[in-house]
C-alpha cells in the first residue's frame, strides 16, 4: 500500500482524537465518581439506577413512617401506663371504702375518685402532634367529654366522640401497620368511665362499692393491659421493621454503587495506560510528521 504524508497526518489525528476521547471519558468518570453519568453510558445500568433510586427514596420514606408510628405508639403506651396506675389507685380507694376499720370518710374517698376521674379523662384525651390518639380517625375532636347530667344518677355522662377507625401507616412495600389504639380498644368505649362515675356517685351517697364494681374495674384494667400489650407488640414489630429497612437501605446503596460508581482503581489504571499511549503517540508524531525526503535533499 502506498502511504502518503496526508494519510499519516489523518491517521495520527484520528487515533489521537480517539485516545483523547477515552481520556476525557475516564476523566469524567473519575471526577464525578460515577461510571454512569448519562443513560447512554450504560442504558441497562441507568434503568437499574433509576429503579434503585426510587426504591431508596421509598425506603427512606418507610423509615420515616416507622419513626412516626413509633412516636405515636410510645405516646399511646405511656398514656396507657398512666391509666393503669390510676386504675390501681381506684382499686385501693375502693378497698379502703370497703374496709370498715379505716377512718377515712367515704366523702373524702369520693373526692379522691373525682380527681382520678379527671386525670383519666385527661389521659384519654392525650394528643400527639395535634392528634387525639384514642379517637380513631376522629383525630381533631376530643374523644372523651364528661358532661353534668341534668337528671342524676349518674351525675355525669360520658360520650365517646371517636370512632373505631384504624389508622394504617405504610411501613414497607405493600405493608401497612396500624399505628393507633382506639378508645374502644383501650377503654371499652365509655365502660371504664361509667364504672368510675357510678362508684364515685355511690361513695358520695355513702354507699361502699359493690363486688360487681370491683369486677368491672378489674375488667377495665385487663382491657387497658391488653391494649397496652398490643401496642407494645406493634412497637416491637416496628423495631424489627426499622432494622430491616436500615439493612435494605445499606443493600440498596451497595447495589446502586455497583451500577453507578466508578471503579476508581481500574479507572485510574486505564487512565495511566491512556496517558502513556497519548505520550507515545505525541512523541512519535513529533518525530515522524516533519519528516520527508525534502529534509535530506541539499
Amino acid at each position, binding site marked *: 500500500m502506498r502511504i502518503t504524508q496526508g494519510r499519516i497526518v489523518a491517521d495520527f489525528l484520528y487515533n489521537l482524537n480517539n485516545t483523547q476521547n477515552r481520556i476525557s471519558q475516564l476523566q469524567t468518570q473519575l471526577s464525578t465518581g460515577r461510571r454512569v453519568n448519562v443513560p447512554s453510558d450504560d442504558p441497562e445500568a441507568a434503568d437499574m439506577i*433509576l429503579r434503585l433510586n426510587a426504591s431508596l427514596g421509598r425506603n427512606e*420514606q418507610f423509615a420515616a413512617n416507622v419513626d412516626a408510628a413509633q412516636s405515636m405508639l410510645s405516646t399511646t403506651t405511656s398514656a396507657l401506663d398512666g391509666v393503669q396506675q390510676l386504675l390501681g389507685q381506684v382499686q385501693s380507694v375502693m378497698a379502703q371504702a370497703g374496709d370498715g376499720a379505716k377512718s377515712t370518710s367515704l366523702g373524702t374517698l369520693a373526692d379522691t375518685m373525682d380527681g382520678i376521674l379527671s386525670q383519666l379523662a385527661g389521659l384519654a384525651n392525650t394528643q400527639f402532634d395535634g392528634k387525639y390518639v384514642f379517637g380513631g380517625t376522629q383525630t*381533631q375532636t376530643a374523644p372523651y367529654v364528661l358532661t353534668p347530667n341534668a337528671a342524676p344518677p349518674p351525675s355525669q355522662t360520658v360520650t365517646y366522640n371517636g370512632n373505631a377507625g384504624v389508622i394504617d401507616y405504610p411501613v414497607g412495600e405493600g405493608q401497612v401497620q396500624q399505628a393507633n389504639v382506639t378508645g374502644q380498644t383501650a377503654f371499652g368505649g365509655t365502660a371504664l368511665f361509667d364504672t368510675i362515675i357510678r362508684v364515685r356517685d355511690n361513695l358520695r351517697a355513702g354507699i361502699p362499692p359493690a363486688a360487681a364494681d370491683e369486677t368491672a374495674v378489674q375488667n377495665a384494667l385487663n382491657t387497658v393491659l391488653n391494649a397496652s400489650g398490643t401496642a407494645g407488640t406493634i412497637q416491637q414489630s416496628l423495631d424489627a421493621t426499622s432494622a430491616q429497612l436500615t439493612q435494605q437501605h445499606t443493600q440498596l446503596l451497595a447495589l446502586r454503587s455497583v451500577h453507578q460508581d466508578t471503579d476508581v482503581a481500574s479507572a485510574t489504571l486505564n487512565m495511566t495506560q491512556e496517558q502513556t499511549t497519548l505520550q507515545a503517540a505525541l512523541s512519535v508524531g513529533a518525530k515522524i510528521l516533519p519528516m520527508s*525526503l525534502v529534509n535530506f535533499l541539499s
Partner: protein
Amino acid sequence: MSGLSLILEIGRRALQAQQVGIAVTSHNIANATTPGYSRERAGFVPSSPLMTPSGLLGTGVDVAGVTRMRDAFLDQQARDVNQSMSDAAMQNQILTQIQSTFNEPSDTALSGLLTGFFNSWQSLAVNPEDSAARNSVLQAGTQLAQSFHTLSTQITQLRTSLQTDVSDKITKINTLTSQLSQLDLQITNAQALGRTDNDAMDQRDEKLQELSGLINIQVSYDARGSMTVSTGGSAIASGAGAVALQSSVQGNQIVVGLGAGGPALNVTGGELGGVLTMYNSTIPATLTELDQAAGTLITRVNQLHQAGYGLGTPPSTGVAFFTGTGAADIAVNAAVAANSNLIAASGDGTPGNNTTALAIAGVHTEKLMNGNSASISDFYNNMVSTLGSSVDSTDNQSKQQQAVLTGLQNQQSSVSGVSLDEEMTNLITFQNGYSAAAKVISTVDSMFQTIMNMVSP
C-alpha cells in the same frame, strides 16, 4: 533523415517532456494538502518511430496527457458509508440533546420527583390533618407537573428548531447540486474538445462526497463521463442542470419534495435523513410516551382523589388534584393549590382517616401502563433507558462507519494521495532526465561545430 537534426529534435522533445513532468510534479506538491485532490501523472510514450534504411528508429518521447489517479469504486463506497455515518451522527447529536433534557439519573429529574411526589402522599397518610404535610404534597405535585411540562416544552422546542436545520441543509444541498451541475458541464465541454479537466473532476468528486454527507445519493456516469445524481430514484443534478429540493411542514411532518410542489422524496440517509427521522418519528414518539405517562398519572390520581375527602365541615369531595390531559398541560388544580384543605387524604370524611392518601401513594407501584404490566415509574425508566440505548447505538454506529470510512480514505489516499517522497524522487528523476537531454543537445551542437569546421577553410 536520420541526421543530426533528428537527434536535436529528440533532445528538444525530451527537454519539453521532462519539463512537463516537473510541472506536474510541482502541481502535485503544491496540492499535497488540497482536500479531494488526486495526484496526477504525465503519461510519457515513445513517439512514432521513423523508417530508415537501418530499420525503425525511435524519435524520442511524447507526452500523451496528464491523468489523475482515482478509483471510482472507492469513491462510490466512501459516499455510501459517509451517508449512513452522517445519518447516525446527526441522530446521535439530536438524541444526546434530548437525553440531556431528561437530566437522568438525578434526584432533581422527573424520576426523583415522581418518588418525591408519592412519598409526600405517604407523609400525608401519616399526618392527614397536618397542613405542613398538605403543603409538601402541593409542592411535590407542582414540581412534578412542572417537570413534565418543562420536558415536553423543551423537546417540542428542540423539534421545532429542527425545521430551520432542515431548510439549512436543503439550501446546502441545492448549492452543491447546482455547483455539481456546472462542474459536470465544464468537464463534458472539455471532453468534447479532447481535453481532460482533472481539477474539475477532482472538485466534482469532492462535492459528491460532501453531498453524500447530507442526503442519500446514487451517482451514475454515461459514456462521456457525465454524471447523474439521483436520490430515492429521482434525478436531482446532472450536466443538464439541477432540480432544487424544497421542504414543507405538512401537518405533523416535514416533507421534502422535488422542486416547487413536486413529488415527495424518500430521504433515507445523510444528515437530512437523520434530522427527518428525528422530526417525523423519533421525537413525536418520545412526546407521545411522555404524554401517556403524564395522562395516566393525571387520570389515576384524580380518580382516587375525587373519591376521597379533604378537611373542613363538611369535608370537600369530588375535587380533581391535577388538571390537564398530558405532559404539556399537566398542572395542580388551581383550587387545590389555593386551599390545601381540598387535598383528599381521607376515605370517609373523618380528618384522621388516610385511606385515600395511602391509595394515591400506592399509585407509585401500581401497574397501570403497557397493559397493566408496568407502573408509571417503570414506564418512564424504560423510556429513559431506551433513549440511552438509542444514543449509545447511534454513537456506536457512527463510530463504526467512521472507522470504515477511515479505512476507505486510506485506500483512496493510497491511490490518489500525494506522497512528497515520491514527488521528490520524481523531481530528481525528471531533473536528471532534463540534464541528460540537455547533454544530448550540447553533444549534437558540438557535432554540428565539428561539421562546420570541416566545411570552413
